[in-house]
């Protein structure tokens, strides 16, 4: 083998090795990513297809269900089953929501994710529903139709909206205080309260006694701190009033900040980081105020932190004081709170039955603040508790703060102020990512200056409740006092009665001597550093006063007393001064009440005697009712003859003849002339015409009728009587009656007529005229003779029983059974018309 062959062989070998190496490189750097990319694309397409198919099927199912539900809703409305209809309507609404969601995913969600634009729909799918769910609504208190309609439920407040309710069964309303309430708020040091939140506990709608007791026990303390502006607690109602903070909850803000950050950063950008640190610093600062005021919030979570834009600067506020508990409470710890933001140690202690005052409750708020900071950085829950790991972009110092805040009870920050100092250091750092945990104040050995926070309440309140205790703790304390291993040994010990030192036996003046420390008790077992200082100061004051007493030598000396009480912070007043002051206070209260009443009357219009809308509606209802009754009565009178109507004849404009029908007989007379004292005319059941004020036209019979006319007027007839009789006869003939009998024009010698008249008189002889028998006999006779009607005209009788021809006669119309009503009515009307004209 020649050297050249060897060289070629070596070159070939090198070439092969190089080719293999290049191939390996190609495979590892090109083909593998390529295949991964293809697999990624295939997986996306597969997810897209599966998602589209599943949503399409689900949407069809929802539509089918809607088609089934719709007729059920309508059917139940038709048959009046409202509850069932509402039930089916609710189901229909649920199906509609499902169909809408499926349609949205088919049209937008799945295509956007297919092309890698999942972030595009995050806002619609996550942030938008959250914001809608938490938006104030127009929901009103139960039974209320309008805000003004419920003005009386919360006196001094006008409800303008509502907020989503929590888990305590309470209702949250947004309200506007009236001028009086605003003035009272301002007197209390709360200025600019335009809107408030009323947390109401309706006993008949979801609230129960334990909730009310729990929420009410820290009210007074919360009120002193300015957290609660007003409250009312009575057997029938319980509500309290807080300042309304318009804004978005922190969880929504966190999501927005993460969405606004550059996705390549895998976390918050610098602006979002600083905003978040500001929110959490506000939160911790407020918690510090709480703790210094002796309270413990117990339900710190992002949903309870509202971010408000205040003068262009976002400011976080802690809301919802439902679980606020005094730190020195003697109650047993409870497990209330929100998972992930509640220290698991709290649950363990609560299960052991530890009392609130046996632990430092502020540390549980510190844990929750750390959890909130974690949630802000990670945009997720701290599901691992203390082991939760921040995987997103976050400065190491902030991670350390989270770790320290969520550490075990004995190892975490001893106070919110200590955590606030660390947060303030990170905020102040030019580059938070360059800040190391060792640079944080809590890791330093020197005391730390705590940044001052502007409280929500007035400076006076701040000084009164917070300032006295501020900045006296040693924040370098590395390890806080340990938890009680067992129930506290002094848990059952009773507090000693205060020592009262009497100053004047006659007046009863006395002072309460500060409690001396028990010789066997640990110096700091119960009191903090500030209380120890105050107690020592009190002892020194007492000693100085005692010396002054000894120097004066006279008990009860006014000068000594004055010195003593001035030094002890007590101003003594004489009895006269006290009485005068009390009177002045009472007078001031009376004037205040008068002013309140006077101002309540006009501007608000509550409890006014003036007719309002309710009065107007009530009046309409009453008037309508009366009109309805009148119309009913009138309708019955005109349509039915079943009722008996009494009409005073004197009310008629023209004298009208009264007609009475009894069976087949009509009695016609002028009631006004029947007697001096006109008696009411009684109409029988079958009377159709009650009374007439105008003469009606007399109808004419088409087929005619046979009538017998009988007159009881004594002969010879007077002119008036004759005229009346002729008028009646004439009118009857005009109406179509074929008249025979005692007519003025009757021919003498007409035996048939005479006989018939005689028969008629014989039939009723001995019978009282107008009686039932009179009627029955004549009816039978008329039927027998083939007549249609008998008209019997009789004069009225005077008081002596003689005929009085000066009065209008009485006419009786007796119709045969076969005669129609028209015949009888026509005869009656004709006689009535004739008598009316002859009156």
């Amino acid at each position, binding site marked *: 083998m020649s050297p050249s062959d060897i060289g070629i062989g070596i070159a070939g070998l090198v070439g092969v090795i190089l080719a293999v190496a290049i191939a390996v490189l190609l495979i590892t750097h090109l083909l593998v990513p390529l295949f991964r990319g293809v697999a990624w694309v295939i997986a996306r397409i597969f997810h897209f297809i599966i998602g589209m198919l599943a949503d399409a099927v689900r949407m069809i199912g929802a539509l089918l269900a809607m088609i089934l539900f719709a007729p059920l809703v309508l059917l139940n409305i038709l048959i009046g089953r409202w509850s069932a209809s509402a039930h089916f309507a609710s189901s229909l609404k649920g199906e509609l929501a499902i169909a809408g969601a499926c349609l949205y995913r088919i049209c937008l969600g799945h295509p956007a994710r297919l092309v890698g634009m999942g972030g595009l729909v995050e806002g619609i799918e996550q942030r938008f529903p959250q914001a809608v769910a938490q938006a104030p609504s127009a929901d009103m208190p139960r039974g209320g139709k309008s805000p003004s309609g419920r003005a009386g439920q919360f006196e001094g407040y006008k409800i303008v909206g509502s907020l989503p309710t929590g888990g305590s069964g309470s209702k949250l309303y947004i309200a506007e205080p009236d001028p009086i309430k605003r003035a009272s708020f301002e007197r209390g040091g709360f200025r600019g309260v335009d809107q408030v939140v009323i947390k109401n506990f309706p006993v008949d709608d979801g609230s129960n006694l334990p909730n009310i007791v729990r929420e009410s026990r820290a009210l007074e303390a919360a009120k002193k701190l300015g957290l609660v502006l007003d409250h009312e607690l009575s057997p029938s109602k319980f509500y309290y009033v807080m300042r309304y903070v318009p804004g978005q909850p922190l969880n929504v803000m966190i999501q927005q900040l993460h969405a606004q950050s550059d996705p390549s950063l895998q976390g918050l950008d610098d602006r979002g980081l600083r905003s978040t640190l500001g929110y959490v610093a506000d939160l911790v600062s407020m918690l510090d105020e709480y703790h210094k005021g002796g309270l413990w919030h117990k339900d710190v979570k992002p949903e309870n932190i509202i971010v408000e834009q205040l003068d262009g600067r976002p400011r976080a506020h802690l809301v919802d004081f439902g679980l606020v508990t005094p730190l020195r409470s003697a109650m047993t710890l409870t497990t209330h709170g929100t998972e*992930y933001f509640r220290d*698991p140690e709290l*649950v*363990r202690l609560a*299960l*052991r039955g530890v009392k609130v005052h046996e632990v430092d409750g502020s540390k549980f708020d510190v844990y929750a603040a750390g959890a909130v900071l974690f949630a802000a950085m990670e945009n*997720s*829950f701290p*599901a*691992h*508790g*203390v*082991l939760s*790991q921040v995987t997103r972009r976050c400065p*190491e110092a902030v991670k*350390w703060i989270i*770790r*320290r805040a969520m*550490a*075990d009870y004995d*190892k975490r920050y001893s106070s919110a102020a200590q955590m606030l100092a660390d947060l303030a250091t990170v905020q102040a750092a030019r580059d938070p990512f360059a800040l*190391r*945990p*060792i640079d944080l104040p809590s*890791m330093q050995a020197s005391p730390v200056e705590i940044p001052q926070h502007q409280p929500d309440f007035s400076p006076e309140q701040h000084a009164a409740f917070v300032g006295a205790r501020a900045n006296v703790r040693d924040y370098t304390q590395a390890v806080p006092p340990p938890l009680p291993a067992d129930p506290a040994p002094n848990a059952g010990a009773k507090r000693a009665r205060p020592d009262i030192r009497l100053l004047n036996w006659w007046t009863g003046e006395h002072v309460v001597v500060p409690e001396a420390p028990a010789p066997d008790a640990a110096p700091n077992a119960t009191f903090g550093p500030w209380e120890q200082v105050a107690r020592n100061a009190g002892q020194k004051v007492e000693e100085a006063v005692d010396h002054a007493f000894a120097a004066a030598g006279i008990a009860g000396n006014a000068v000594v007393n004055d010195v003593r009480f001035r030094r002890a912070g007590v101003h003594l007043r004489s009895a006269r001064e006290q009485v005068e002051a009390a009177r002045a206070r009472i007078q001031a209260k009376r004037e205040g009440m008068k002013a309140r009443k006077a101002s309540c009357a006009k501007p608000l219009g509550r409890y006014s005697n003036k007719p309002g809308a309710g009065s107007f509606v009530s009046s309409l209802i009453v008037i309508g009712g009366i009109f309805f009754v009148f119309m009913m009565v009138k309708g019955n009178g005109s349509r039915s003859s079943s009722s008996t109507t009494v009409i005073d004849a004197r009310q008629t404009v023209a004298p009208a003849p009264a007609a009475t029908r009894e069976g087949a007989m009509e009695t016609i007379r002028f009631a006004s002339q029947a007697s001096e004292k006109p008696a009411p005319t009684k109409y029988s059941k079958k009377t159709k015409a009650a009374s007439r004020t105008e003469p009606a036209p007399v109808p004419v019979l088409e087929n005619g009728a046979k009538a017998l006319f009988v007159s009881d007027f004594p002969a010879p007839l007077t002119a008036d009587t004759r005229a009346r009789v002729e008028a009646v006869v004439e009118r009857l003939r005009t109406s179509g009656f074929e008249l025979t009998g005692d007519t003025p024009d009757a021919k003498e010698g007409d035996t048939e007529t005479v006989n018939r008249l005689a028969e008629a008189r014989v039939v009723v002889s001995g019978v009282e005229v107008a009686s039932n028998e009179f009627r029955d006999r004549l009816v039978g006779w008329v039927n027998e003779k083939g007549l249609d009607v008998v008209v019997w005209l009789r004069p009225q009788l005077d008081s002596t029983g003689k005929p009085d021809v000066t009065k209008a006669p009485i006419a009786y119309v007796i119709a045969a059974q076969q005669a129609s009503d028209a015949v009888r009515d026509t005869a009656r009307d004709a006689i009535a018309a004739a008598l009316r004209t002859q009156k």
Partner: protein
Amino acid sequence: MLNSLTTGFVNRLRANDQAAWFELWETFGPVIRAQLMKWGKGRIGPETVKDLSQETLAALSDSIDRYDPRKGARFSTWLLAIAKHVLGDEMDRRGALKRGSGKKTGEFDESWMAAARSALGADEVYEAAVFRAKVEAAIRMVQKESDFTDFAIYSMRVLECKPGKEVAEALGISEPTVSRRLAKVRDVLRRRLGEVIMTYSFTQEELTEANRNGLDLNPKRTPGPDDDVLFDDSISEIYHRQMEMRRAQTVGF
């Protein structure tokens, strides 16, 4: 074979010791929730998962007296069976409530479980999660027991996988100090892990799970540097897997 720790724990449960129940809930609750969420995916919501996991523990409290480890059943498997029936009851109840579904109350339908079965099978995945929960419980115990800074160093170094030099710079200490404090916490963790596994393991097979997962708990043998690295890596991997499971839960919630 039961050891004294296991027997004591079961006895505490049977005596209705609230702390023991909370401990059990803290350890196994997330695993049960994850399993219920997997089974009921698309059928039940997060709030229902919470309710069902609590119902599972309530059912367990009713039947804890009947548990007999001598029959060979793992405690975790037994717990899973209870959770399975609780979920089954819920699904049946929903099926019965739906009008026209054709299902009657009390009809046990497990077809929905088959759809959620993963490649390893529900039992294997579940048992792995249970083991991870035990490791997490041990880490929690160590966190309580250790000095804050010591555990912070361990957390940064092992759980967050930061280099020793970076940890030393962040805390202003030397690297040997970091190593020394790390070793201190690791030793405590080995001991506590052994105790936790002894407490929550009811069969011989469960006792050997630690070795199978790269965690050497033999206290008699002095561990070398390689063993420590392997132990830390195993802890880190288990911790991150557990975090993934929790993260999936929080997304669901």
